């Protein structure tokens, strides 16, 4: 037993030496495995990230969340939007007043602007919202206060800063009570929102300023219509009901005849999360296909190189057999060589996969989660590819006739 282990060790060393003698070729052989394993790692990382991001979406929007956009959906499902919104603050008021299943309503307009505070300035997005905003998004102020309904009514020049904006404009703190200038209009800072972090698309949600929608419409964007209305149903199980109530109210207000297309559309939190999971799923499938194809090509590459190697080393095989190597010693030697190629390729692939995941996280902004499971999985797959595709050449080597092999030129 001990002898067999000793011999096995010796034979594995023989295989290792053969690989290190031919470094470039060995590397090229591994390439398919490297890419394949890299893809598996990235796929699983992105897949886990997708799941996590959907969870984040649900958590950050709340299960009651409904988004109301301007623009029609035709019978065929295509979304038409002419660019002219027809959602008004009055629509929002009507929804709040007439829909019992609706708890909060927040008319929303958006603008992008450079914000100046003293010497410092910062480019960010301005959201015009109502006082329901913190309730809908469950987003409280950390310092100071949120603006009031009175501020909305009187188009007061007040705002609440996101944590990132506050940090950049007031690095030493003490933002509350200060004046920031947005498009040259001075706004008093009422408060700073608590930190929320990146959203599902990786954007920094704290890089924003919220102000009364009335003020933003009048002073900053000059728009008279809303970009969106954010709504919260009274309870998670009332989301469907709220959507039908809203639809009825708006169709009546917009005078849409029965059977006509609505000039607005709604999406619940669940639908938003689903769309997102879908687009990530598509990418995941694509990567899985690449992974599969690469592993296959990698395996064939290993088989090809091993076959070449067996032919090239026919004489070596003959010599080994003449001095006492059994068929299975030769088989093990070549199999070990193939598996080592695959596993080293797998190792490089794991590193590549982790690096790729990092790049995806950085540029696409998805949360990426690399797990030990996925590393173990790809390792196992790589080893199996090595055994599967290395077996045929190794067996071919082990069945050579020593006399013919010795005579081989």
């Amino acid at each position: 037993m001990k002898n067999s282990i000793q011999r096995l060790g010796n034979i594995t060393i023989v295989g290792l030496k053969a690989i290190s003698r031919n470094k470039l070729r060995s590397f090229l052989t591994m390439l398919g495995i490297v890419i394949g394993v890299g893809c598996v790692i990235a796929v699983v990382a992105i897949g886990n990230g997708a799941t996590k991001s959907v969870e984040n979406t649900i958590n950050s929007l709340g299960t009651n969340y409904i988004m109301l956009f301007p623009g029609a959906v035709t019978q065929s499902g295509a979304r038409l939007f002419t660019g002219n919104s027809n959602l008004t603050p009055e629509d929002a008021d009507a929804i709040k007043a007439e829909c019992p299943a609706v708890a909060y309503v927040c008319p929303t307009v958006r603008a992008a602007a450079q914000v100046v505070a003293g010497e410092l300035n910062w480019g960010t997005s301005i959201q015009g919202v109502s006082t329901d905003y913190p309730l809908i998004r469950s987003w409280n102020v950390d310092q100071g206060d949120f603006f009031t309904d009175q501020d909305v009514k009187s188009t007061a020049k007040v705002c609440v800063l996101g944590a990132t904006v506050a940090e950049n404009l007031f690095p030493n703190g003490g933002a509350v009570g200060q004046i920031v200038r947005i498009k040259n209009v001075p706004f008093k800072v009422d408060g700073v929102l608590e930190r929320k972090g990146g959203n599902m698309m990786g954007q920094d949600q704290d890089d924003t300023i919220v102000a009364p929608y009335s003020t933003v419409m009048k002073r900053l964007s000059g728009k008279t219509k809303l970009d969106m209305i954010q709504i919260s149903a009274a309870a998670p199980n009332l989301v469907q009901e709220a959507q039908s109530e809203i639809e009825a109210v708006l169709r009546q207000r917009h005078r849409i005849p029965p059977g006509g297309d609505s000039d607005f559309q709604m999406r619940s939190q669940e639908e938003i999360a689903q769309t997102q999971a879908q687009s990530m799923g598509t990418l995941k499938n694509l990567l899985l296909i690449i992974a599969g194809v690469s592993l296959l090509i990698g395996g064939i590459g290993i088989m090809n190189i091993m076959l070449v190697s067996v032919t090239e080393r026919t004489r070596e095989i003959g010599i080994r057999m003449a001095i006492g190597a059994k068929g299975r010693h030769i088989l093990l030697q070549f199999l070990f060589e193939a598996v080592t190629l695959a596993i080293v390729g797998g190792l490089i692939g794991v590193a590549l996969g982790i690096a790729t995941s990092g790049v995806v996280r950085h540029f696409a902004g998805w949360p990426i989660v690399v797990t030990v499971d996925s590393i173990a999985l790809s390792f196992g797959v790589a080893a199996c590819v090595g055994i599967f595709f290395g077996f045929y050449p190794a067996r071919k080597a082990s069945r050579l006739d020593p006399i013919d092999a010795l005579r081989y030129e």
Partner: protein
Amino acid sequence: MPPRVIEINQLVKIYQMGEVEVRALDGVDLLVDVGEFLAVMGPSGSGKSTLMNIVGCLDRPTSGSYILDGVDVSKLSRDERAVIRNAKIGFVFQSFNLLARTSALENVELPLLYGEFGWTTELRHNAARASLQRVGLGGREDHYPSQLSGGQQQRVAIARALVTNPAILLADEPTGNLDSRTSEEIMGIFQQLNEEGKTIVLITHEPDIAQHAKRIVHVRDGRIQKDERIEQRRVAIGRWAVRHRSATHPGPSPLCGVGVTG
């Protein structure tokens, strides 16, 4: 009476080439005792290599019996023959057949990798080093075959053949690729090893080389035509090995008495 190493009876080897039967060996009888130095001679195609392949357990006879060192090896399986080759036979080839890009020491160690006895790395190194010393290559352990002359490469091959302390050394045209001076050197080593008790079977078609042996067997058309003892054998000029008479084999070989199981 000295013990028998090779006992061959009515050995026949037939190659079937489609319709045609080639009788490469056609009823060979051959007895070789321990300590003999036998040269097999004959024209090209007479069956020398075929005989050597069977004697070396690389091939099986079509019929006839072959007892090597007390074991009937004529009907063994592939794996069983591999074990026999490893334990009882040391091959020396015309074209040296060393592994390229592998040091002299590692080449010599090679048979020990496949041995039934569990050699530790250290034991392997020591055995290989002693074997290299025995053929006068002490100090060349780390040279690659490409860094050695033809004669030196053949000496490494002889060291490799010796390392398991086999029952016979089998050399097929060992001087075929060497000039006459180097050939003499190699024959000197064979004579030296034979004097130390090693049984040697040498295949050659050069009469000069055959004259170094103690006995010559002439083969023709697959049969033994003549079997002669040489009264005044030729002594290799500049008997290099004599100067190394004191070199000893590394202890009693653990391979002694290895038989075939199964």
